């Protein structure tokens, strides 16, 4: 009897475990609206007289990545506040940031699509071509949001950069931003460089001084690297943004010329010259040899440990992050943001991730008006998406942060706006919720001191010296060959840089392995 009871218990436990494992944690997609205008919520007073009445949804299902506050960073409080402001319930699907696009692929393939989804440029173009995304061209054209964008210089251009054959399938919330080259001021001082480089020759002279001299002031020459990066070529567009001075006008993927004709930048002389520059700099020891295997966090940690002095990284808020982390490590946080050297011309403003409405959404017009538009309303909702929740992400209470660290402690008076310590990294403070205040497309009255001078200066320099990236449409031929082609290109760039192949040998291998044929096939499909 006892044995039977034990076996029954074990079987029940196993069934329960299976049921738990098989339980789908993602909430079922709820209808975007309940379809009945008689149940419209109070509090929604905005009506656009020129547009047919748009029904406000009761609930929306959104799929978002880690750029929106996660659970660990008061995500629940964020969406609760959103519901308080708008009266709309939000079902959030928020996979781990690193696995976001794995889950997006599975979700789209599974058929149970959310109402709203954040997509990067690659997936945006691909899913738009396949009919996954709702065409918001008309909704945007007749919206107040369009007027707000037109009121701020540059914003309309960001929206236009997402158009595919004139149609709009997603809405940017911010400029895409890009990377700017930061140089440690103390390193410049220690090697006697008094002015920042303006061309490649001067840049190389700086690299040489940082590598062969004693820029870190430890009394030892030649124990530092000049520059490091997360890989010799980026894993997503624009692929050259971490080493722009070496790539200059080269681009290892598909570009459109001024006549609208597509071609592969990898097949150009510019790319060959870029690879040679990388190889020469690597052989001279200017580039950190572990660039090949670095992740971005490895680079940041080495930068904070004073292992190298030139770091091309994201403009704006990151300038302040780099500064504060250097200071936390006992180093000077003075960084010079370099204007692009002559050969680079302009830094690249990447295509921003877009907030898209899927074609399975039952009330896309309502979701557009009451969610997408509201996010950039220039008022309370935009404030929430920019600064987060009071008491979680920011505060105006009189207090001293990091009181136990004399060097780091900051005291704020009553009413003084300040960001609160990051829940996951308590030694640093939040800088935004989702929308970077310096990258916003709609003007919002910013609280005093919400942006540091460091971040603001870096962002202004970037904004004044950037050019927009472009969307590459997706084709079947690209699906078929670009996986192998990109792998081959990255392999050749790495091998040439590390001196294992010469440029000519690399291009011979490129042709022998089928890379040229794949590239030509993709270009042909793009130009059809």
């Amino acid at each position, binding site marked *: 009897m006892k*044995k*039977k009871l034990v*076996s*029954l218990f*074990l*079987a029940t436990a*196993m*069934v329960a475990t*299976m049921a738990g494992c*098989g339980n789908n944690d993602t909430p079922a997609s709820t209808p975007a609206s309940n379809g009945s205008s008689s149940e419209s919520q109070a509090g929604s007073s905005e009506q656009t007289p020129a547009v047919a009445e748009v029904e406000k949804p009761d609930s929306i299902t959104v799929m978002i990545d880690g750029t929106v506050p996660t659970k660990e960073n008061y995500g629940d409080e964020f969406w609760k506040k959103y519901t308080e402001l708008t009266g709309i319930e939000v079902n959030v699907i928020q996979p781990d940031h690193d696995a976001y*696009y794995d889950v997006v*692929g599975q979700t*789209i*393939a599974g058929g149970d699509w959310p109402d709203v989804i954040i997509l990067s440029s*690659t*997936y945006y*173009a*691909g*899913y738009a*071509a*396949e*009919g*996954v995304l709702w065409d918001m061209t008309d909704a945007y054209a007749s919206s107040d949001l369009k007027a707000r964008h037109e009121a701020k210089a540059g914003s309309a251009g960001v929206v236009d950069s997402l158009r595919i054959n004139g149609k709009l399938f997603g809405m940017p919330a911010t400029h895409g931003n890009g990377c700017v080259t930061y140089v440690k001021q103390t390193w410049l001082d220690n090697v006697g460089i008094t002015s920042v480089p303006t061309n490649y020759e001067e840049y190389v002279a700086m690299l040489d001084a940082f590598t062969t001299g004693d820029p870190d002031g430890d009394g030892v020459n030649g*124990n530092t690297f000049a520059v490091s990066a997360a*890989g*010799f*070529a980026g894993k997503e*567009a624009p692929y050259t943004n971490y080493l722009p001075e070496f790539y200059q006008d080269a681009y290892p*993927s598909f570009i459109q010329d001024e006549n609208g004709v597509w071609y592969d930048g990898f097949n150009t002389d510019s790319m060959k010259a870029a690879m040679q520059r990388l190889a020469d700099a690597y052989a001279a020891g200017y580039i*950190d*040899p*572990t660039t*090949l*295997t670095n992740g971005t966090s*490895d680079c940041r940690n080495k930068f904070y440990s004073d*292992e190298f002095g030139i770091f091309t990284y994201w403009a704006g808020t990151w300038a302040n992050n780099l500064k504060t982390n250097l200071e936390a490590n006992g180093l000077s946080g003075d960084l010079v943001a370099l204007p692009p050297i002559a050969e680079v011309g302009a830094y690249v403003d990447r295509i921003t991730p877009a907030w898209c409405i899927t074609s399975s959404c039952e009330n896309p017009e309502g979701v557009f008006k009451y969610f997408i538009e509201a996010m950039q309303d220039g008022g309370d909702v935009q404030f929430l998406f920019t600064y987060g929740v009071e008491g979680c992400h920011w505060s105006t209470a009189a207090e001293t942060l990091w009181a136990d660290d004399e060097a780091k402690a900051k005291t704020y008076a009553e009413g003084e706006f300040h960001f609160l310590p990051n829940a996951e990294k308590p030694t640093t403070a939040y800088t935004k919720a989702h929308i970077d205040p310096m990258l916003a497309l709609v003007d919002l009255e910013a609280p005093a001191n919400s942006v540091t001078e460091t971040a603001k200066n870096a962002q202004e320099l970037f904004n004044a010296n950037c050019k927009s990236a472009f969307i*590459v449409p*997706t*084709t*079947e031929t*690209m*699906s*078929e060959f*670009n*996986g*192998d082609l*990109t*792998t*081959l290109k*990255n*392999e050749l*760039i*790495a*091998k040439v840089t*590390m001196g*294992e192949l010469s440029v000519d040998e690399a291009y011979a291998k490129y042709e022998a*392995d*089928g890379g040229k044929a794949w590239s030509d096939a993709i270009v042909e499909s793009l130009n059809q």
Partner: protein
Amino acid sequence: MKKTKTKAPKQKMSGKKLAATIYRYRGFYLMFLPVFVFAIIFSYLPMVGIRYAFTNYNGIKEPVFVGLKNFQKMFGMANFWSAFTNTIVISVTKLILTTAFAVVVSLFLNELVNIHFKKAVQTILYLPHFMSWVVTASIFSLILAPTNHGLVNTFLVNIGVLQPDKMIYFLGSEKWWRFSYYLINIWKETGWQTVIFMATLAGINTELYEAAAIDGAGRWGKMRYITFPALANTILTVFILNLAKVMNLFESAFVLQNDAVLGTANVLETYIYYQTFNSGAIPNYGYTTAIGLFKSLVGCILVLTCNQWSKKVRDGRGIV
């Protein structure tokens, strides 16, 4: 007493008898039921997805039947054959090395007299098995770095084997990558495999060693004539069982490989990964399914081959 020969029944058990048997062992069947359902749902039902290998399918629109086109493309790609060869070579070599080292370590551990010290060493040896591959790769990237922060290169420079400007990029060089990979795997997996061999060694009758000692056998003699033969069957069984899994190689290769070593480090599952996420477009899941199907077929052939070998060496007992 008359011996009666019992013959295996030629007829199927009658329904009544079957039901009675099931009822008699119902506890065991009940325990087996969840496993059975789990296997059906997660192992057999997904096999329906094999049909995508014969289609172009991007996960959004309905799949379009293309016959054997995906296989034709696959067999025509040099990268595919490179990944296939790498998978077999790396997996089999890794298996041989980790098994051999596990045997050697087990034998040495078995000779330790102090039981507490023995257990402590064994625990330290198999702890790396529980470390995630991501953490392992991170640690070894630092240890093997070609800079004066890299432990191995610094040591080699200090003892005069290497010049300071000629440090070796172990993980960034096709010449050294596999060697580094095998060493890391030995470090991580050897200890865990010793658990099985130590269990076998613990089961050897101590009277055999006493008899050997009386006959004048030394430590090496005991190992050669008692320990090795006792362990041989276990070694072969473990080897054959693991050989069936050689096609399943992803995590360790993925975290340790990089752009410069793909010629020797790219394996089938990482090839599938790059096809999916490097395409810059919505991937063709039909093609990646075709590769996965080929991999499964090869794995199936390996399992059946290993099963035949197992029957030969284990008195007719297979692994399936």
